[in-house]
């Protein structure tokens, strides 16, 4: 087979090996390969090199998974803990508010439903912010970020359980 026809076919070999060609182009390549050992060797090389690359990548991934990444490990462990904290904060607030609402009736100095909704949202947001800060707590490189996150929670959500927890954390530190 001539070098010229090999050059023409070379641009199609990867897509051929990956099964990405139209039936028409695929037929053209197959016809060339039937008479060209050099191009057949390249197609074999395409399959083999990808198979070997995958062995190297997979081995590297297995090694990477054996070594804990501090944030990853903490995040995985605390993922549900974070959600549970959000749910618990909301549950406590909703239960207390609804009991007050039922006992006093609407408009009798208890919080309005709109107020309850606002407070529920605040409890949820503050608890999520706290869970995020806790992911990084104890990592020296993130000390500043964690402190500013704590300040943010106390300043913006002062009446939430998360803010109360932050205050005790800060007091514990000093």
């Amino acid at each position, binding site marked *: 087979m001539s070098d010229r026809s090999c050059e023409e076919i*070379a*641009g199609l*070999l*990867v*897509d051929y*090996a990956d099964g990405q060609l139209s039936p028409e182009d695929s037929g053209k390549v197959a016809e060339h390969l039937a008479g060209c050992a050099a191009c057949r*060797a*390249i*197609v*074999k*090389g*395409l*399959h*083999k*090199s*990808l198979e*070997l*690359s*995958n*062995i*190297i*990548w997979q*081995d*590297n*991934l297995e*090694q*990477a998974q*054996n*070594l804990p*990444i*501090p*944030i*990853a490990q903490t*995040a*995985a462990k605390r*993922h*549900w803990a*974070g*959600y*549970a904290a*959000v*749910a618990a904060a*909301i*549950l406590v607030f909703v239960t207390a508010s609804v009991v007050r609402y039922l006992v006093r009736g609407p408009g009798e100095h208890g919080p309005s439903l709109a107020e309850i909704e606002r407070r*529920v*949202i*605040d409890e*949820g*947001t503050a608890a*999520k*912010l706290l*869970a*995020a800060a806790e*992911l*990084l707590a104890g*990592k020296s*490189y*993130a000390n500043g*970020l964690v402190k500013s996150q704590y300040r943010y929670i106390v300043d*913006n959500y002062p009446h939430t359980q998360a803010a109360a927890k932050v205050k005790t954390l800060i007091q514990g530190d000093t």
Partner: protein
Amino acid sequence: MGAVCVDEVSKDCAARAEQRTGHRASQSNLLGVFSAELGRLKRIAAGMGLSSADCEDVLQDVSVQALKRAAEFQSRADCLRWLTTVTVNRCLMEHRRQRTFRRRAPEILRRRSAAETHPKPIEEWAIAAEELEIVRETLRQLDGHLLAPMVLSYFCELDSRGIAEILNLNQSTVRGRLREARMILARRLTQRGVEP
């Protein structure tokens, strides 16, 4: 309350809080996205050939950068694209510093054969080691602009559109680079006298 329900409550709260307060909750959401996507980011870093210690360093850097930029993302998709792009760029830095694919073929094969129930005969093992070493060396020397699409496509299984977005290229450039990278690997394997 079941796990799914707790998750839904949390998501709903965050979404409503964001509607009301702008980006207040985005900092925590970003970390949520980061931890949910950590497996995928780790796969990218491993595919790019980083050692486990470098992989750890890179992902820590990315998480801290993510926290600092938390307010800038409009959507989860935005945030994901950003996390992936930054991870790839950090891995490319390590690749340029020749800190990738440093584990040699015999070590990889020893680990694999320890896990196999029927180990290969010695001659087969030697051929496999030679071939694997050629591919490892080629990946190590491959220019970053070819390595990144190769890993994202064949190891992370992204399509050329996804790769184009991450690498800020057009799709035909991505496909061209994929073909170039594959041909370099295939030719290196056939030229070095090893029967593929």
